[in-house]
Structure formats: C-alpha cells, structure tokens
C-alpha cells in the first residue's frame, strides 16, 4: 500500500493540512468484499491521473500525519474487470484541480471505468462545522 500526504479541502471549504492517504488495489470476486493489496509508487505513477500524482507526496516514516474526522472523497479506478485502485480526491468540487482530475480520468485510455464517491460526514461533526464557520 503506497502512502502519501497532502492538504485536503472539504466540501465545507475548510483546508485540512498534512493528511495521510493510502492508495491501494482491491481485487474483487463475486460475493466477497474484496481483498486489499499494495501498490508501488511506480504502479501509481502508471495509473493515477497526473494532477493527483503531482499533489501527493510519499510519506516519510516516523513522521506525524493527520487523519480526517469523516470519510473523504475518493475514486475507484477500475483497471481490470475484477480489480480497482482506491485513491483520494483532495480538492473541493468545482475547483480547477477537481475539474482537471475529472477531465484527466475521462481522457484516460488504460482504465475500464471510474466511480467517484463523495464525502460522508456524520451528524455531530457536520453540525459543528456548519455552526462554527
């Protein structure tokens, strides 16, 4: 599993700094949840859209990184009929970077399909965010 960090901008426009993300491959067979396995930096360089690669920085062992208090935006990039790459989308929707990411995925030739999943924020944190800025 290749691990990276970058700043993440939530749907609520807040920037979360130095957040750690894992990029991994999931192999799926019918009737199972799928099995996670590692990707290498080279695998990711061949698969991920260029704008995402230029945003992510590989983590340095023994340094501290943040995690998010909600489920982050992500993409499932299907590279074969039974496996996909799971990667984060760290930009706010409708931003220049987000639109570039979508356009780069649309023009990719090597992938079978891609699904975009939005954020999921639970009630207590959502209420805190909308009532405090």
């Amino acid at each position: 599993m290749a691990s990276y960090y970058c700043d993440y901008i939530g749907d609520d426009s807040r920037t979360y700094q130095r957040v750690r993300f894992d990029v991994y491959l999931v192999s799926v067979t019918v009737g199972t949840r799928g099995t996670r396995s590692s990707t290498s930096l080279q695998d990711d360089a061949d698969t991920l859209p260029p704008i995402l690669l230029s945003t992510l920085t590989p983590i340095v062992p023994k340094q501290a990184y943040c995690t998010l208090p909600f489920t982050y935006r992500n993409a499932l990039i299907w590279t074969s009929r039974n496996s996909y790459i799971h990667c984060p989308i760290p930009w706010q929707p409708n931003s220049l970077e987000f639109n570039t990411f979508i356009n780069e995925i649309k023009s990719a030739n090597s992938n079978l399909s891609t699904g975009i999943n939005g954020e999921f924020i639970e009630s207590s944190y959502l209420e805190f965010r909308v009532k405090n800025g």
Partner: protein
Amino acid sequence: MASYTLIPTTVGKVWDSRILLYDLDNNNGQQLLKIRTLKRDGNDNTMPTVTPLYAARFVTDNPMKVPPRAGLNPRSLSLCYPNPNNATGRTVINVYVPYSPDKPEWKEQIRETFNLLGATSIDYRGESKPITYTSQIN
C-alpha cells in the same frame, strides 16, 4: 411555490413530486432531477421537509424534459427522527443539497436544515457518480 401532485403509497406515506435544479460537482454543470419530498409519514404525521433554500431550486418547467440520472447519486442529507410507531423506532428522510459545495448556499441550506426541521441527527453524503470515458464514447 410550485403546484404538485400527491402520490399516496401502499404504506400510507404521502409525497410531493418535484423537479429540482441541481448543481453538478464538476465543470459548473447543472441538471434537472425528478425528486419526491415526504409530506406525511405512514402514521399520518405531517413531515415538513422543505426549507426555503431547498424550495428555491424547485422548478415548474415541463417535467417530460427531465433526463435520467444515469448513475448519479446527488448530494444529500439523511434526517433521522425518532418514531415509536415504526418497527425500527425511527424515520429517516433524505433531503437533497442542490447547491455545489463551492457556493455559500451549500452551507446555508445545511444550517437551515439543522435549524428548521428538528431532526435528531443529520448525516451528509457528497455526490457520487460513474465517469464516462471519452475514448469509450468515440
């Protein structure tokens, strides 16, 4: 406000049919969506689920022009209410968020929903959809 048709369901819920102008997450796109808003639950309790900013995006144009969603799951809020008359003990209602997150109305609509609809808890789910490849279209 738009006129609407009441659609009673088999479990006694009453819905309003609406057409919603929805901001897509990318390229400043917009799309019309056919939606339903719950007016009365199965126990004949009135369930007002429309706030002013939500209602501001209802349109009255010819609904025959509304395109299919094609895998699009719009941004939404899940409102949870206690309901002792239900087997689950609760009622969950979905309210769509038609404003894209980069607009101030996004936060205002969520704030309004917290303040006006009195739900016990409100979860948020962002937009999800499949991407169509340019190479597959050609």
